[in-house]
C-alpha cells in the first residue's frame, strides 16, 4: 500500500504530529538547535521524511537522543556525527561532500559554466554574422530570383 501512496500522491509524508510536547526542551536556544538538526536528519525507516516530520517511533527516539546529547553539552556537529555513526550516511539529507559526492556538488556550477560558455559562443556567432557581408550561396541566389519574379 505504501507503494501505491507513493505512486499516486506525489507526497509521501504520513500525517504526523511529529514533535510531541513532552519532547520540547525548556531552554529555547537548545530547542532551536535541536529542531535545526532534526530537520536535516532522515528517518531511517520512512520514505523521504526528516525525523522532525516523521511519526515513526524510531524518529521519536532519535529526537529524544539528540536532545539528550545537546543537554549534555555536545556541539551540533558532534550530535550529527554520533547519529551518522550509528545509521550511516543514509540519514544525512545533505550528503557529506567527500569522495564521489564532490561530483554532485560540482555538477550544478560546472553545468552552469559550460552552458554560459556555449551560450556566449552561440551569441557571438550570431553577432559576427551581422558584420559579415551578406554573401549569398548559389542556391539562395536562385531562390531570390524566383521570389523576385513572382
Amino acid at each position, binding site marked *: 500500500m505504501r507503494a501505491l501512496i507513493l505512486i499516486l500522491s506525489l*507526497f509521501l509524508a504520513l500525517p504526523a504530529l511529529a514533535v510531541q510536547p513532552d519532547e520540547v526542551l525548556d531552554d529555547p536556544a537548545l530547542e532551536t538547535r535541536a529542531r535545526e538538526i532534526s530537520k*536535516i536528519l532522515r528517518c531511517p525507516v520512512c520514505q523521504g521524511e526528516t525525523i522532525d516530520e516523521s511519526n515513526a517511533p524510531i524518529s521519536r527516539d532519535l529526537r529524544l537522543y539528540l536532545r539528550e546529547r545537546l543537554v549534555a553539552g555536545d556541539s551540533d556537529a558532534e550530535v550529527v556525527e554520533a547519529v551518522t555513526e550509528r545509521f550511516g550516511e543514509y540519514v544525512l539529507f*545533505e*550528503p557529506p561532500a567527500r569522495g*564521489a559526492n564532490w561530483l554532485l556538488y560540482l555538477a550544478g556550477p560546472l553545468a552552469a559554466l559550460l552552458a554560459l560558455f556555449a551560450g556566449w559562443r552561440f551569441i557571438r556567432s550570431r553577432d559576427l554574422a551581422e558584420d559579415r557581408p551578406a554573401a549569398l550561396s548559389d542556391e539562395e541566389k536562385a531562390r531570390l530570383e524566383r521570389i523576385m519574379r513572382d
Partner: protein
Amino acid sequence: MNAEIGHFALILAFAVAIFQMVVPMIGAQKGWSGWIDSARPAALAQFGLIAISFVALTMAFVSSDFSVRLVYENSHTAKPLIYKISGVWGNHEGSMLLWVLILALFGAAAAVFDANLPPSLRARVLGVQASVGAAFLGFILFTSNPFLRLDNPPFDGRDLNPLLQDPGLAFHPPFLYLGYVGLSMAFSFAVAALIEGRVDAAWARWVRPWTLAAWVFLTIGIALGSWWAYYELGWGGFWFWDPVENASFMPWLVAAALLHSAIVVEKREVLKSWTILLAIMAFGFSLIGTFIVRSGIITSVHSFANDPERGVFILAILAFFVGGALLLFTFRAGSMQAKGVFAPVSREGALVLNNILLAVAAFVVFIGTVWPLIAELAWDRKLSVGTPFFEKAFTPFMVALAIVLPLGAILPWKRGKLMRALRPLRGALAFAGAVMVLVFAVSTGRSGLAVIGAGLGSWLIAGAATDLWLRTGKSGLSRLLRLPRADWGKAIAHGGLGVTFIGISLLMAWQVEDIRVARLGESFTVGSYQITLEGIEERPGPNYDSIFATMTVARNGKQVAQLYPEKRVYPVQAMPTTEAAIQNGIFRDIYLVIGDEQQNGGWAVRSYIKPFANWIWLGCALMALGGFVSLSDRRYRVAAGARRTAAAPQPAE
C-alpha cells in the same frame, strides 16, 4: 460485462494506435493523400475507444463492482461518490489509463483544431503521438490491466488511502497528467519537424500553444499538490524536494525554457535546433518522471527489484523514444540554420540566458534526484539527497533568473542598450529597494532570506508593471486595454512568479511555531495571538471517526476566528489523518492542529502563524492565468484563416 467492454475497447484502441502510427507516416513519406488523411479519423477513434474504456472503469468504481480486482483494492461502499470517482486514478493501473486517455485527447485535439497544419506535417505529428500511445497502451494491456476480475468477489472493498480522500488531491493527478502528457505534443511536433527537416516561424507558432497549455496544467497540478501538502500533512510544509515532486518539477522547468525559446524561433528564426532539443527533453523528463513514480526505483532499488516488469517496460519506452528522437536529432540538427542575427545585449540574448538558467536548474534537480541511485549502483553507498542540498544548489539559479528577468523582458529585439533599458526600471528598482528596507526593519534574526526574497519578488512585480506601462507608449491608459493578450499574459505570469517568491521567502523566514499540551479552557500566546482550546468531542463521519476540537483565536482581546481542527481515523485502513484548521488571511494564515490526548490530561496542540502563505499559490494561480491569457492571443486565433487564404492560389498538381 462493463469491465469486459472496457478491456475490449482498450485492445481496439491499441490496434487503432498501431494503425495510426504506421499508415499516416507512410502516407506522408510517399505523398499518398488517402493514407495521410487517415490520421484524423484514427486519432478520433483512438480517443473514443479509450474514453469508452475509461468510462467502463469509472462505472465499475461508482457501482462498487468488487468483482473487479482494482475496485476491490481501492474502493469501499461507504466512500463518498467523489472519492469513488477519484479512486479510478488513485492507483497504478487506473492512473495509467488516465495517462493514455489524456494522450489520446491531445492527439484528437490536434486532429480537430490544427486544421491549418500542412497535411503531411499533421499526419506525422499524429503518427508520432500514436506511437507513444501504442507504447503505453501496450504497457497497460501487458503489465497493468485494470480490468482483471476476481473469482470470488468479496463483500466489500479495501478502501482508498485516506490521505487521498481529499478534494485537493482528487484533482491533482488529472491536472498533472494534462501537463505531463501535454508535453507529448511538443515532442510529436519536434520529431515530425525532424522527419520533415523543416523548422520555421510557423512551426514555432503551432508548437507554442500546446507547450503553453501543458505548462499551465503542470503549474496548476504542482500547485494543487503543494497546497494539499500544506493543509493535509499537519504542519504546513509545502515543498519537500521529494523524488516524486522533483519528477513533476523538472518537466515544468524545461517546459518553461521551451516556452521562451519557441518565442525566439517564432519571432527571429534562431535557436531552432535548441528548441527542438528542449521539446524532446521536456517530454523526456515527463517520461523520466513517469518512470520514477511508477517503478519506485528512486525510493528504493529493492522495491524496483520486486516488480521489475513494469519498471523495465517503462525504461524501454523511455529509452526508445528519447534515444530515438535524440538520434534523429543528431542527424538532422545540422540542417536547421539560424536566420536572425542579434547583439549580445538584446531580447534574444536575454532569452538565451533565461534558457541557460532554467535548463541548468532542471539539471541540478535531476542530478540531485538520481544521485542516491548513482551512488548506490556505482560505489555501493547508501545516501540521501534532500532539502538542504536543493536549497543550496537550486536557489542561486532562481535568484539569478529573478534579477535579470525584468530587464530581459523589456530589452528590444536584435540590439539593445543596457543603460537605456534600465532607465524605465528605475521606479521598479526603487520600489524593490524600499520593500527590502521595510522587510529588514520589521524582521528580527534570520532576515537575509526575507529581505532578498521579498526584494526579488517586488522587483519582479514592479518590473512586470513597468513592462505593461512601456507597451502602452505615449497613448497611456486607453491603449492598455487594447494591448495584445500575449503582453498581458507575459506581465501576469512574470508578476505571479514574483508573488510566489515573496510567499515562499516570507513564510520560511517568519513562520512562528508553538508545540504544547493545552488543557480545556486554557489560553496560550503564539506570536501576537491568544489561542484557547474550548472543547473536544467525538463525531462520526461518513467513513471515519473524528475527534473534533473547538478553538478560538483572539488578538488584543478581540476574537479573530473560531477554528475546528480534527483528527480522523479511517477504520477500514486503520489509519489516522489530521485535518488542520486554517484561518486564511492575506498577510498570514493561522494554522491549528489537534493531536493526541496526553496521559496526565490535556491535548497535544500545534499552532502556527504562517505569514504570506497564500501568496505561494496565488502566484502559481497568476502564472497559470497568465498562460491562459497568452494562449487566447489573437495570433493563435486568426492564424488559421490567414494561412488558408495564402495557400488557396496554389495550382493543383
